[in-house]
C-alpha cells in the first residue's frame, strides 16, 4: 500500500532509520570536535609536565614526551635532592611549591568557609524576610559585573596606602593588609559572596517556609528550627556552594597577583613566576604545577556534579 508520500511502510521505516543515523553521527561528530578543542590544552600541559627541558618548545612539536621524565615533578616537590646542574633559582623554587600550596589551601579554604557562613545567613534572611526588598537578589549579582582589575587597583590603594596611613595616624601603628593572609582572605570572601548568596538562595527557597511554621507551632525555637529543619535540608547545597567557591578562589589569579608579594604566594601566582635567567620560562615545572593545581579542581568538579544532582532534587515535598 502506498502512503501519502508515495512510500511503502518499509521504505518509510528505512528512511527514518537512515535519518536517525545521520543525526546521531552529526551530533557525536560535533561533540567529539568540541571535546578535543577543550581537552587539548590540558593534554598538552600534562604531556609537557613529563618532558625534559629540550622538548618543551621543540619544533615540530613532540605530542608525547620522547624521553618521559619525572624531573619536573621532582623539582616542584623536591622529593629528591636537586640535580646540581640545575640553576640556582630553580632549586629555590622547588622549595616554594610547598609554601604556595599551603598558602593557597589556607586562603582558599578560609575564604570559602567565611563566604559560605555569611552568604548562607544572608540568603536565609533574603529568602525569608525579604531583606533588601524584592529586587535585592538580582542587585547582588550585578556586583559581579565590575571587572576584577578595577576592584584590584582600588583595593590595592586601600590595602597598601589608605589603611596603613589611617591606622598609623589613629592608632599609632601602621597596619597594612597588603601581602597578608587576612587581606587576601577578606577580598576573596567579598568577591565570592554574591555567588554564595545567589546559590544558597536557590537552596533555601527550596525549603518550604511552612516546614518552619510547622516546627515553630510545635514549640521549636527559631534556633532549633534552623538547626533541625533548615540546615539538614540545605546541607548538600552548602557543600556544593563551598566546593564551587573554593574552586573560584583556587583558580583566582589577578587579585592575588596585585595584592600580594613576596610573603603570601598562591599557586596561580607562583605558576606565573616560574622562570629562570638562563632558561627563560620553565615550561616543564609550570606544566607540572598546572597539573597539580588542576587535579583537585577536577576531583572537586566530579564531587560537585554528584552533589548538584542531590542538591537540586531533594525537593520531595508535594507542592
Amino acid at each position, binding site marked *: 500500500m502506498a502512503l501519502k508520500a508515495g512510500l511503502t511502510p518499509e521504505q518509510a521505516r528505512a528512511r527514518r532509520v537512515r535519518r536517525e543515523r545521520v543525526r546521531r553521527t552529526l551530533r557525536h561528530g560535533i561533540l567529539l570536535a568540541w571535546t578535543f578543542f577543550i581537552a587539548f590544552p590540558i593534554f598538552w600541559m600534562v604531556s609537557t609536565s613529563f618532558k625534559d627541558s629540550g622538548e618543551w618548545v621543540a619544533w615540530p612539536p613532540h605530542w608525547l614526551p620522547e624521553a618521559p621524565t619525572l624531573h619536573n615533578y621532582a623539582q616542584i616537590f623536591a622529593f629528591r635532592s636537586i640535580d646540581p646542574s640545575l640553576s640556582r633559582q630553580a632549586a629555590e623554587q622547588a622549595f616554594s611549591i610547598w609554601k604556595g600550596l599551603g598558602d593557597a589551601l589556607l586562603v582558599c579554604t578560609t575564604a570559602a568557609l567565611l563566604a559560605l557562613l555569611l552568604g548562607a545567613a544572608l540568603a536565609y534572611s533574603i529568602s525569608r524576610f525579604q531583606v533588601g526588598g524584592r529586587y535585592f537578589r538580582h542587585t547582588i549579582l550585578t556586583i559581579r559585573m565590575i571587572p576584577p582589575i578595577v576592584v584590584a587597583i582600588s583595593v590595592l590603594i586601600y590595602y597598601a596606602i589608605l589603611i596603613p596611613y589611617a591606622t598609623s595616624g589613629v592608632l599609632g601603628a601602621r597596619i597594612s593588609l597588603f601581602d597578608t593572609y587576612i587581606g587576601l582572605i577578606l577580598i576573596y570572601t567579598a568577591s565570592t559572596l554574591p555567588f554564595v548568596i545567589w546559590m544558597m538562595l536557590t537552596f533555601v527557597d527550596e525549603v*518550604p517556609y511552612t516546614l518552619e*511554621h*510547622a*516546627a515553630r*507551632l*510545635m*514549640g521549636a525555637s527559631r534556633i532549633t528550627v534552623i538547626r*533541625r529543619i533548615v540546615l539538614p535540608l540545605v546541607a548538600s547545597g552548602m557543600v556544593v556552594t563551598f566546593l564551587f567557591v573554593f574552586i573560584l578562589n583556587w583558580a583566582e589569579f589577578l587579585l592575588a597577583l596585585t595584592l600580594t608579594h613576596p610573603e603570601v604566594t598562591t599557586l596561580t601566582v607562583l605558576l606565573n613566576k616560574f622562570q629562570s635567567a638562563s632558561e627563560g620560562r620553565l615550561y616543564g615545572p609550570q606544566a607540572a604545577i598546572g597539573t597539580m593545581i588542576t587535579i583537585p579542581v577536577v576531583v572537586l568538579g566530579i564531587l560537585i556534579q554528584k552533589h548538584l544532582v542531590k542538591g537540586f532534587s531533594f525537593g*520531595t515535598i*508535594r507542592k
Partner: protein
Amino acid sequence: MARIVIENLVKTFGAYAAVNGINLEIRDGEFLIMVGPSGCGKTTTLNMISGLEAPTNGRIVIDDTVVNDLEPGERGLGMVFQDLALFPHMTVFENIAFGLRVTKVPEEEVRKRVRAAAAAVHIQALLDKLPRQCSGGESQRVALARTIVTDPAVFLMDEPLSSLDAKLRVDMRTELKALHRRLNATFVYVTHDQAEAMTMADRIAVMSKGRIEQVGTPLDIYNRPASQFVAGFFGTPTMNFIEGTIEAVRGGRLFRSNGLEHSLADSVLAAVPECRAVLGVRSEHVILGESAPLKGTVQLTEPLGDTTLVHFDSTAGNRLVAKVGPSTALQPGSPVSFRFDTGYCHLFDAENGARLH
C-alpha cells in the same frame, strides 16, 4: 478544651487590608469552618490565630488569655498545613515525635505517644518510612498524627485536603469529622470548597474581602443566606439571580424584571420595602410545569444521574437553571413554562447585596 474569641481583628499588608476588622467566637469543642474565595482573608485569620502572623490591630483570646504576644509554640495549638509540611529528611516516626522532642518529653513516653497517635489514624506500618515514600492519603494521616500527638486543645487546618484527589477527599472528610468527635477538641478549618464546609462544619463563617459575611450552621447558611454573595457561594449550581424592582400591589409585593413578574404572596416577603432588588432562587426551587405562568426556551440539559439540570432562557432574557428529575423529555429548543417556589425565594438589596427579609 478551648474557646477562641476574635475581637476587631485587622491585618494590613501595606495599604492592602487582608483582614478588615472581624469579630468571631469559636465555641469550645466546635468544628468551625472559615470559607470564602481566594484572597478573602481566611488563611491570614488562621495564621493570626496560630501566631505565624501578628495582627495589625485587634485581639485574639484563647480561654480568657490574650495570646497576641505569645509565640506560636506557646499557644497550645496544632496545625495541619495545606502542603502538609512534613519534614522530608525525617522518618514518619521522627516527624510525629518532633513536637514531643522539642519539648523534652522523655524518650519512653515519646515512643508510647507516637505509637498511639499513629494508631489513631491507622499508620502504624508507615513509621519507618520517609514522607516521600507515602501516598497522598498516607501523608495526610501522618500530618494529622503529628498534630494529634501533642494533644492540642485547638486544631487549625489550612485547606488540608486540597492536595488529594476527589474520592480520597470525600473519604477524608468523613474521617476528619469522626476524629473531631473522638478528640472532642476545637477545630478551626479553612477551605474555599463550600461542599467541604457544608459536610463537616458545626458552624460556618463565610468570608469575603477581609470581612465575615455570615456565621451560622450549614443549613442556616444554605437556607437563609445573609447576602447575595453568600447565596451565590453556596450550592451547586449557583443560585439564579434576577435583577429587578419590588413594587407594592394589593395584598403584598410584586417582583418585576423586564416583563418577568413574580408575585411575592408570602407573609415574610410582603414586608420588604419597595426598592431595586435581586431575586434569588435555587435551581431546585424553579418549578417547571405546563400550567406555570412564566415562559422560556431550553438551551441545554445536563443529566447528572440522580437529577438533570435544565438551562433555559426566560422570555424576559434571563438565563436560569432548574433542577428536575432524572428523566426529562426537554430538549434544547423546546419551550418551557416555569414558576418560582415563593416560600424559597430570597430577596437582596441591589445596591449592597444585603438580605431584605
